[in-house]
């Protein structure tokens, strides 16, 4: 599961959804994997304003990854200030791409900060099905 998806995933339990503590889910005993992919400037620009930035920073901190900028970068921060035809991805864009789209959780758990329920990740696929007593 790419780390980007963790910015959209919260606890599946309905009574948790209204609690701010249920988002983001906290990685536990996570094994990370890096899968290289093509940098996509158009996508980064579009997705930036939709991210919940401080929650993203929380996740990277908990995973011990290099710190992200404190405030959310802008679309302009994604390109180097260069004259010419071709857009060149900035270091900020490359770093973000690395974190959001190349780094993923291979194995481990994702824990709700509100109810403490742990969702398992196996072979890169998170399981958010709820056991009978929690539905």
């Amino acid at each position, binding site marked *: *599961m*790419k780390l*980007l*998806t963790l910015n*959209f*995933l*919260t*606890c*599946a*339990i*309905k009574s948790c*959804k*209204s609690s701010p503590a249920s*988002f983001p889910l906290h990685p536990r005993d996570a094994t990370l994997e890096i*899968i290289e*992919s*093509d940098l*996509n400037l*158009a*996508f980064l*620009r*579009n*997705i930036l304003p*939709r991210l*919940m930035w401080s929650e993203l920073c929380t996740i990277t901190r908990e995973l011990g990854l290099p710190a992200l900028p404190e405030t959310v970068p802008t679309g302009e921060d994604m390109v180097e200030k260069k004259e010419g035809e071709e857009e060149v991805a900035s270091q900020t864009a490359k770093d973000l791409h690395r974190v959001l*789209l190349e780094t*993923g959780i291979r194995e481990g758990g994702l824990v709700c900060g509100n109810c403490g329920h742990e*969702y398992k990740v*196996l*072979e*890169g*696929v*998170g*399981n*958010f*099905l*709820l*056991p*009978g*007593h929690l*539905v």
Partner: protein
Amino acid sequence: MPEYLVRLVQVHESFRKAELQALADVAGIKIDFISYDEDSPFCVVGLPSDNAARTMISRGILSHGIYELWGEGSTYDNLHASVRKRSSEKWSLYHEIPFRFTLDSFRGSRKPADQRGIVDSFSYLGFMGPIRMKEAEVSFKVFEDYDNKASEPKHLYLGRFIGESGRQAKTTYDLKKRHYISTTSMDAELALLTANIALAATGKLFYDPFMGTGGFPIACAHFGALVTGSDIDGRSIRGTGGSARKGQTGKYDVAGNFKQYGTESHYLGAFISDLTNTPLRGLILGSEHGGYLDGIICDPPYGIREGLKVLGPREQLGEVERATHRDRYKEPTYIPPKRPYSFIAMLDDILAFAASTLVENGRLSMWMPTANDDDIELIIPTHPCLEIASVCVQPFNKWSRRLLTYRRLPDSEVSQEALLLAKKEYDKGVKADDLNAFRRKYFEGFKEYQRLQEAARATNDIVPEDTNT
């Protein structure tokens, strides 16, 4: 605006106009429909330029190509008169260069000698360049539109070739050549078409809540979107459930399908979940954070084989049973209980989910089966945050399948009450009232549909053949 002739395919007719509109919308191009007929593969549109026409058609699935319209008429005399009137100032541009001049007869045919005669009748255009069948610099085509079994065409067009469609993707993504599929995979043509109608494109994020073996996400990735999906069945994502392909061995999974097409950079991965208890975050009222999905595409599970179930105990669990689930759920062999789920309740859940997760103007494209009954035909599930963008019908004998596409209205066009309702539905999972007369009627029709579908499966007669396109 200059006029262009789109050479459509004569299949999935009711999807064609919706696709052309979507192709224009996704490219930010204004399109005017000048003439369109369900019974004809020729459509005349107004577009701002050749470039706009080329860009737009390049990802079309239900078309072959687009032509600058040089003239049209009901007889050859009328066509020649129209060509003289509309395009004479353009003739000289093509006097010296290698060219190609051919005939396309729809539902009709001409002997080679007649074809030559028709081409020769345009000699007044004054083209002196060499005739080339290959590598011509400019290509002209005469189009003849016949009624079924008619001896003479009812309408004629002359067009200058501008650009080819993206229909070859139908072959590239053919299920027969895909590594990993299931018995319910939607054929490549319809999956690509759905992705077009939902405006999948570079830079966007798309999601399929019932992804199965990933057919829709794969189609969206073809058009440049980044995609994710989920399924209640983890085996279909991880691929340990086997493939529907005969004699296939070894492990195939959804990620492997993306690799097959070279779009693995577009796949964000998938997760196991159930739409009624989705882990995806919803609307946060009073925050600057709105939706984050550009599009949602799905073919909700409605068939016999998949069963229509969601997680949850069949009835309220007793204290002892609850304790048993609590004790056992961490065991690897634990299977959560499932309960039957009304199809209508599911449609409402999908709409509430879309209202809460789509960006403003994002699209939901949802397939929905319907028994062919006058009362039922009109029922389209609604939500105050969603506006219907198009309804396309794939008719079968006694039932049909519809593709409903909705646009998420901007918050400014939606009432506060509607937003609050959307949030409440999303948080609490408000259920549809199955006792409503219309809904009950639909549901009865749906049972009939299930019976028909089962019968159709038994005779292997579900998907119509792609003939005479």
